[in-house]
């Protein structure tokens, strides 16, 4: 009669399965709580002889704490396995569990595959059950319709196969045999399963994220870590993209020709050679270049500040960009910095490799840090009467690594010295006045490594020299000669056999460039080849007699006083209606950088003979200076017969 009993059992089970199927279609959410129970059921079902061993303990081992349903279900299992006639009708959710029981043994192997997350795949591939049902193989693909649906599918499959109990037995036996090793290994399997379960949940979670990416994506894109990552890697990628044409050549190179030969050397006669230009459509269009600086730490970095963009008012007024001249074709700046009012002067901090300083039109001095990913300043000076209230046209970092200060001068004649770490208040401030008249400074230079004495160019056309400390703190001497505001000021700074450091050059709106010595109150020489406002003048940092001027017609001249003191060595006018606003020599004197009023920076390489001074260049220059002196004295005599001594000499010469 056991066969009949068996059949009755099976009928009951089948009925229960049907019921379960119905309930499952109503309660899809019950699947996940089911699966852990399934494993527990399977374990408890198989270890029926051990059923007296605490099922709770076993379940807890597996990591499931479903205290409420557990005891009932475990209790219900043991009688079910023992004798089917004792099957009672437990409540709805547990009915599911019970009915799952026959399925439980089968669902274990698919469950292992269910935990097939991407990370685990390579590890599991060795252990994978090759004889597991071929249906399971299908779910190894990395498709979107992955785990969440497969658990249901498996269960469905199981139900289907359950009709054919023989086959179900076979498969279950096979799977049991393969996947449920003896008790000793059971624990390890369990812990593995735990891992897999966790990973599967993770995998599930990641896959659900994968499906919901739109919102999460936006969130990620806006998050800070992503921004950091993106600014770094986009820079990397852009650089490698832009530089890879050379890489192509390396690979396609059949003859192994020297790639360096491609960089043409300049002809002997060619004094300058166009290298590249820096222009950014968004940030520099319609803006005037107000200041240029190069970094002492990384000579290929060029800093440029720009005026406000009148055309588009929604862009920030103050823009400062750092360009990299090493990458010949990358068209985008390395760093972009913004601030509220337009930047009138900018400087790299000589002693801090990551600090960029800017003086603005509003009188604020702002500090940016390249280490942060922010585009806005990390420090700002207060807009108060103690600091500047007029545009800051001059900024310079002076001092040494340990004791450095930032000196700034604003248009009202106030000179402040700051400590870069603490910009809330100036360390000291001084009002510059010459004979009770405030000096409206437009340019300031500390010659060489001076920290005390400085030279200032003003709006009225005079240059002044002064000192910060000492008995005569303030403006001491004035140098008169220009008839218009001084736009450029440059001190001689070449170390050589003869020291020309008292020399400085000024350029002005009065169409002239004048050469001065600190000791003389009258200019040594005046260069008047320009026919419009001269906007900037710079001595070469390596050659004692070479300097560069630029003017508002787009013309820039390179002068070599040893070659000719009347005419420039090279005079070039740029095409188009550009006006040059600033010019600068690179630290090594081998490049010049010109900024114009359309936001473009142009780099030119300079021929060798202008960067390598010969020994006698210094002597030649001092001779030239002597000539200048003689000329000025003669001119002085001619023009000022009222001077008695001069009149005497004039009389004698006449």
């Amino acid at each position, binding site marked *: 009669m056991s066969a009949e009993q068996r059949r009755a059992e099976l009928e009951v089970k089948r009925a229960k399965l049907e019921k379960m199927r119905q309930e499952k279609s109503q309660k899809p959410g019950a699947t996940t709580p089911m699966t852990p129970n399934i494993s527990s059921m399977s374990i408890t079902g198989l270890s029926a002889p051990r059923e007296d061993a605490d099922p709770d303990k076993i379940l807890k081992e597996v990591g499931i704490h479903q205290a409420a349903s557990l005891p009932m279900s475990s209790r219900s299992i043991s009688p079910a396995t023992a004798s089917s006639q004792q099957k009672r009708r437990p409540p709805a959710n547990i009915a599911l569990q019970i009915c799952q029981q026959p399925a439980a043994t089968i669902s274990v192997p698919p469950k292992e595959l269910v935990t097939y997350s*991407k990370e685990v795949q*390579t590890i599991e591939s060795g252990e994978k059950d090759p004889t597991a049902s071929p249906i399971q193989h299908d779910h190894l693909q*990395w498709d979107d319709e992955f785990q969440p649906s497969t658990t249901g599918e498996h269960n469905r499959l199981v139900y289907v196969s359950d009709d054919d109990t023989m086959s179900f037995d076979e498969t279950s036996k096979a799977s049991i045999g393969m996947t449920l090793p003896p008790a000793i290994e059971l624990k390890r399997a369990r812990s593995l399963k735990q891992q897999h379960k966790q990973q599967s949940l993770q995998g599930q979670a*990641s896959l659900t*994220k*994968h499906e919901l*990416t739109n919102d999460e*994506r*936006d969130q*990620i*894109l*806006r998050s800070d*870590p*992503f*921004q950091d*990552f*993106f*600014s*770094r*890697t*986009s820079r*990397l*990628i*852009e650089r*490698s*993209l*832009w530089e*890879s044409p050379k*890489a*192509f050549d390396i*690979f396609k190179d059949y003859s192994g020709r020297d790639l360096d030969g491609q960089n043409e050397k300049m002809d002997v006669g060619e004094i300058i050679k166009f290298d590249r230009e820096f222009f950014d459509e*968004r940030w520099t269009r319609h803006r005037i270049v107000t200041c240029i600086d190069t970094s002492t730490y990384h000579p290929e970095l060029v800093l440029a500040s720009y005026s406000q963009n009148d055309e588009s008012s929604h862009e920030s007024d103050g823009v400062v960009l750092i360009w990299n001249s090493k990458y010949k074709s990358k068209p*985008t700046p390395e760093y972009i910095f913004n601030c509220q009012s337009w930047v009138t002067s900018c400087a790299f901090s000589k002693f801090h490799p990551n600090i960029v300083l800017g003086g603005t039109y509003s009188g604020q001095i702002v500090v940016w840090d390249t280490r942060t*990913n922010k*585009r806005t300043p990390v420090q700002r000076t207060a807009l108060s009467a103690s600091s500047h209230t007029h545009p800051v046209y001059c900024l310079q970092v002076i001092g040494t690594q340990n004791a450095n200060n930032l000196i700034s001068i604003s248009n009202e004649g106030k000179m402040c010295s700051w400590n870069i770490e603490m910009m809330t208040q100036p360390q000291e401030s001084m009002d510059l006045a010459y004979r009770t008249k405030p000096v409206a400074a437009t340019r300031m230079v500390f010659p060489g490594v001076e920290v005390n004495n400085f030279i200032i160019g003003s709006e009225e056309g005079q240059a002044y020299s002064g000192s910060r400390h000492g008995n005569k703190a303030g403006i001491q001497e004035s140098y008169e000669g220009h008839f218009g505001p001084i736009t450029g000021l440059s001190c001689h700074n070449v170390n050589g056999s003869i020291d020309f450091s008292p020399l400085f050059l000024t350029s002005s709106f009065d169409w002239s460039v004048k050469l001065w010595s600190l000791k003389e109150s009258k200019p040594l020489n005046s260069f008047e080849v320009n026919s419009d406002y001269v906007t900037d003048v710079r001595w070469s940092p390596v050659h004692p007699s070479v300097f560069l001027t630029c003017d508002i017609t787009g013309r820039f001249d390179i002068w070599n006083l040893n070659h000719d003191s009347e005419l420039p060595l090279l005079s070039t006018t740029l095409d188009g209606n550009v006006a040059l606003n600033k010019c600068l020599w690179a630290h090594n004197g081998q490049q010049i950088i010109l900024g114009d009023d359309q936001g473009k920076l142009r780099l030119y390489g300079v021929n060798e003979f202008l960067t390598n001074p010969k020994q006698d260049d210094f002597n030649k220059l001092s001779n030239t200076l002597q000539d200048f002196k003689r000329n000025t004295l003669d001119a002085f005599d001619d023009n000022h017969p009222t001077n008695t001594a001069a009149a005497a000499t004039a009389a004698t010469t006449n």
Partner: protein
Amino acid sequence: MTQAEVDDTLKRIQEHKGVQGYLIINNDGIPIRSNLDASLTQQYAALIKSLSDKARSTIREIDPSNELVFFRMRTKKHEILVAPEKEYTMIVLQATDVQ
């Protein structure tokens, strides 16, 4: 960098000569941003991620103080530039036979 600038930069990268596509994935190998089609994206995401992990662990094993910063794989048809980072990875595909 605002969202728009991120988009701008990606557009610039995409329009560069030879670039066939880009892909940004997170730690789990899930694509966050991509302009390739879905299946290719998935493939690249998973495959490159595992390769990148392997490369990273290789470098780490050889010298624990070192870390992988960037690598490019040059194949006959493309060059794959990968910039792996702690949390995200950026992958760009560039065709090699552009000339």
